[in-house]
């Protein structure tokens, strides 16, 4: 892992078009600004990990799908709750 010391308003550049700039530092954390091409997805790590874990729970082998669909044959019930 590369480790940098950066002060407020200083930045690092990754590759061709990604810049990460320190906007503010404080006791509670560091505020970062990310500039990246639209094709590059930027996510908070903990949200990405949460969704990855859910996908890994949901995944099935292809030949299990038909059996699973049969179990889900009843119509899902809609609800108005948020």
């Amino acid at each position, binding site marked *: 892992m590369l480790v940098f010391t950066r002060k407020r308003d200083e930045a690092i550049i990754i590759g061709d078009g990604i810049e990460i700039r320190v906007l503010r530092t404080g006791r509670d954390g560091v505020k970062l600004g990310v500039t990246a091409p*639209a*094709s590059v*997805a930027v*996510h*908070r790590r903990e*949200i*990405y990990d*949460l*969704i*990855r*874990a*859910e*996908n*890994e*729970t*949901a*995944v*099935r*082998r*292809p*030949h*299990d*799908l*038909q059996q*699973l*669909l049969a*179990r*889900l*044959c*009843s*119509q*899902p*019930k*809609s*609800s*108005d*709750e*948020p």
Partner: protein
Amino acid sequence: MIQLTASCPSVAPLTVRTADIARLEPRCEDVIAFPDGLPGFEECRRFVMSSDGDQPFQCLEGLEASSPAFVTVDPARILVGYRLILSPVDRRRLDAREEDPLLWLAIVTVNPDDTATVNLRAPIVINPRLMIGFQVMPHDCLYPLRHPLSI
């Protein structure tokens, strides 16, 4: 298990493993590109979707070696009024025009205890005009990751 092989000029030949009862022969125009894969399955960049008539559920099946497969459902059929607004950056990822209708799919998780939930927090969105999609991960979203599904 059937091994089906299809090929087209624009993409490498692909092989799809399907269950005996599901004859799936993807044509080029049926393949949905996921340039970033899905979280946890980043290496799988091509999927096909299949559904059975009016059933609310669909199969989303990866075409790469690991062949991840998911059951999905239109989130609006699970939660009335469900609506996520794509950010301009996310719309550009789909190269979506204003008039392009988008297809939304929520991934269903069936647990070992037979309970099922739907991921309304991070749905898949597809631009059918270009057959390109990705899993939306909005920074702030009030919809739950595990919305209970009655089965």
